[in-house]
């Protein structure tokens, strides 16, 4: 079943030789009776940057949330960094500490300062000393260009700043993979760029990234591969140039014409 419905358009990334870090095989997921992800097959190599797009409700968020098991899949396998995701709690905690995720709504901890938000997981998951963790946090806050906000609470920051803190918070765990779920769609237009800039810079460091976004400029500039999803299926995946200029499926064409219309 896996074999027969594997999209033929599946292309190999340019980084063929490098190590596979995510391997999803024949994966299905249901919410109750609702079949939300259907036969997902996806291989991601270390250092690859993947952009996932598709209409609302197509299962993009659900797919990337399965990768760190914020959602549980019911069929097929997901292997992340050689560890298979099963019900085993210890495995899940290990994978989660190696896979960062940035949410649309930031999800910073409102009762902690920016510095505490960032140093919390290194201290309590990695058992790092407090001073060392704070140094690390400051280093990443500098990288997202808001070290001066370290003592503030998230509620005192703009949306763009909050999202950059969220990115720094994930980076402090020194993750092998970063997942982004529409990181800029809750932001006012003038703040989108500051967040995208941070993400572009992160891509340049060679981080493996899976980004759900409709920012086609970002996809063109950064992505190795663009994946188009619709109704729970991966319809098409191609390098950005081909994807935008030479889409194969009608649904992809329709989708592209809709998002490029505005």
């Amino acid at each position, binding site marked *: 079943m896996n074999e027969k419905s594997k999209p033929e358009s599946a292309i190999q990334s340019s980084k063929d030789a490098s190590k596979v870090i995510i391997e999803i095989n024949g994966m299905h997921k249901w919410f109750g009776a609702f079949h939300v992800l259907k036969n997902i097959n996806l291989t991601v190599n270390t250092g690859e940057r993947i952009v996932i797009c598709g209409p609302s409700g197509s299962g993009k968020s659900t797919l990337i949330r399965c990768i760190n098991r*914020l959602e549980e899949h019911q069929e097929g396998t997901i292997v992340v960094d050689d560890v298979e995701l099963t019900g085993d709690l210890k495995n899940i905690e290990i994978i*989660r*500490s*190696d*896979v960062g995720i940035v949410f649309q709504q930031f999800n910073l901890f*409102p009762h902690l300062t920016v510095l505490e938000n960032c140093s919390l997981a290194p201290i309590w*998951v990695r058992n790092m000393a407090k001073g060392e963790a704070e140094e690390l946090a400051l280093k990443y806050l500098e990288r997202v260009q808001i070290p001066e906000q370290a003592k503030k609470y998230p509620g005192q920051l703009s949306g763009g700043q909050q999202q950059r803190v969220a990115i720094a*918070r994930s980076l402090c765990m020194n993750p092998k993979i970063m997942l982004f779920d529409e990181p800029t769609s809750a932001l006012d237009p003038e703040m989108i760029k500051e967040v995208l800039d941070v993400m572009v810079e992160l891509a340049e460091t060679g981080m493996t990234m899976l980004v759900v976004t409709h920012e086609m400029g970002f996809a063109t500039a950064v992505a190795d591969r663009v994946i188009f999803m619709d109704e729970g299926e991966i319809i098409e995946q191609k390098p950005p140039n081909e994807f935008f200029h030479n889409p194969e499926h009608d649904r992809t064409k329709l989708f592209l014409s809709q998002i490029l219309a505005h």
Partner: protein
Amino acid sequence: MAEVTRTYKVGQHPDLPPPRSEVGVIGWVKYNLLSTPFNVIMTLLALWFLWSIIPPLFEWAVLDSVWTAESRKACWAKMEVPEGAACWAFIKDRIGLYIYGFYPAELRWRVNLSFVLLVLAIVSVLYENMPGRKFGLWYAVAFPFITGWLLVGGLGLTHVETDQFGGIMLTFIIGITGISFSLPIGILLALGRRSTLPVIRILCVLIIEFIRGVPLIALLFIASTMLNYFLPPGTAFDLLLRVLIMVTLFQSAYIAEVIRGGLQGIPNGQYEAADSLGLTYAKSHLLIILPQALKISIPGIVNTFIGLFKDTTLVLIIGMLDPLGVGRASLADAVWAGLAREVYIFVAIFFFICCFGMSRYSLWLEKRLSTEN
């Protein structure tokens, strides 16, 4: 106003002060007390009401009151109009009973010391910026046990039976035990009720619903009569201890529901963010979820505590003498009989001060925590 505005160029309009009628005492009075004819009438009625209540009350309670006398007769003899003012001498005469119950007079220093330790414990729990707070918190955890030993005795101290406890001391023992033990138990019950493990969830629901469905008085009667049936014969189980357990359980069920409400106010994203960083269940709750949930729950928690503190008076039904019980008993004394007003007002004032203090603290805490973000 319009003319003023026109004198500035577009884009350069400065901030002007608001009109006089909107600020200051005059503005406040005008807006809050005299804004409509109906409002004017209500204000006048309220003023008349206050005027006819407060001066006579003040005369009765303070100006004309008698503070030293040997009996009710002596008290009334000192007044211009007999029975026309408060006879606080009665309360003064019994103040030892009101504070210590029947605790042996020569050992009362132990109770006094406990009060001092209590104040220290409260301060170290409530004031976050105190130096040595970490030590303070450990002390607060040890406090109930230190005081328990101090009050009951043993291990070198003369033993005092708990049926000699009474008065304000008893109220504090029951109230503070209930408050300090019910919070952790309530948190566990609330988390249990939201557990994904059916056994734990059902157990917690049963405990909470059973306890909430039974009046406290019934639980106290169970404590005073039935509990011994369930225990092996010959095990003497102190009545006060039984009451403390019942009160704590009762309180825990209510606290659990308040905290469950707080937990429901935490957006799912917080759980997801905590999980996605690899935090375990225990750590994500201790560090992320509970601090926020407790903060939302403060008004409900304090409300429950205030309710409990007042409900401690119910123990007089099973024969324990809290301040209300002491007061009622003292009214039976022929020398002083007839001074019920003084007794009840005194008891009311005591409870009011304690509960008002708790209420103010919770307001202050809410305000401070809300400036945090």
